[in-house]
């Protein structure tokens, strides 16, 4: 996950309590980390919300993966926001979301996007990982946990 998650954009405790608010907050942290111009934030948020409108990306077990494509990025980027209270996300299992993995991919690179989705689904099925992640209070704690996860890019 350290291949695509931007350390400086990780949010250990989201302020937002709505789907749109969480998406806006996380795109904002990617912008602050230098990946978008301030003027591009609205377009990225709008595109992610348009995708949510086609079907929620809440995959269950408290995890959501809002995403979109955006021209001009050097590579797929992502961030993670934890919610202490839970966010209504119309997830497939009806549960509120406590882990929001937001991805923005390069339009011509489906491979990294598929592998990022695979990685996030895999960790979402790992009870021990989820419990450890939800117990994190700081960006540093989250990052050290992420650094220890296996990287499916290295798989055959």
């Amino acid at each position, binding site marked *: 996950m350290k291949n695509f998650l931007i350390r400086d954009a990780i949010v250990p405790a989201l302020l937002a309590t709505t789907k749109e608010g969480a998406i806006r907050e996380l795109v904002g942290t990617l912008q602050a980390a230098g990946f978008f111009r301030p003027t591009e934030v609205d377009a990225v948020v709008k595109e992610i919300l348009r995708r949510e409108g086609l079907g929620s990306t809440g995959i269950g077990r408290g995890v959501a993966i809002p995403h979109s494509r955006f021209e001009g990025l050097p590579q797929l980027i992502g961030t993670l926001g934890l919610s202490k209270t839970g966010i209504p996300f119309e997830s497939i299992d009806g549960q509120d979301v406590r882990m929001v993995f937001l991805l923005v991919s390069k339009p011509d690179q489906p491979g990294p996007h598929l592998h990022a*989705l*695979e990685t996030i689904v895999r960790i979402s099925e790992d009870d021990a990982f989820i419990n450890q992640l939800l117990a994190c209070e700081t960006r540093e704690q989250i990052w050290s946990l992420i650094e220890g996860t296996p990287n499916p890019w290295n798989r055959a």
Partner: protein
Amino acid sequence: MSVTIAMENGPLLGENNPLQAMVVIRNPRGLHMRPAMMIARLAAKYQCTGTLRKQDRKASLRSMTQLMLLAALQGTELELEVTGEDAQVALPILAKAIAANSSEDLELMLK
């Protein structure tokens, strides 16, 4: 003679014995979240159960997340297997859905 009787009284093809087909992913973006969701929704409309296999990885057709774990790019060859009473009806439809060129094409199949 006994063979003929067994055939006449035996289960319909696909009822207990799995039916299989090879399917190639044609969507340029691969089997991403949206097609996975729509395939799972389509598969749930049938009585039969199905799996999609990519080498050593196997996904239930009714599970969006298991389908996402296949991380199947365009051009990936997958083994589709369905078992159940409506397997013969479902097999070609599910194969077509998995091989759809785009989410939009798949969406039309769900209507």
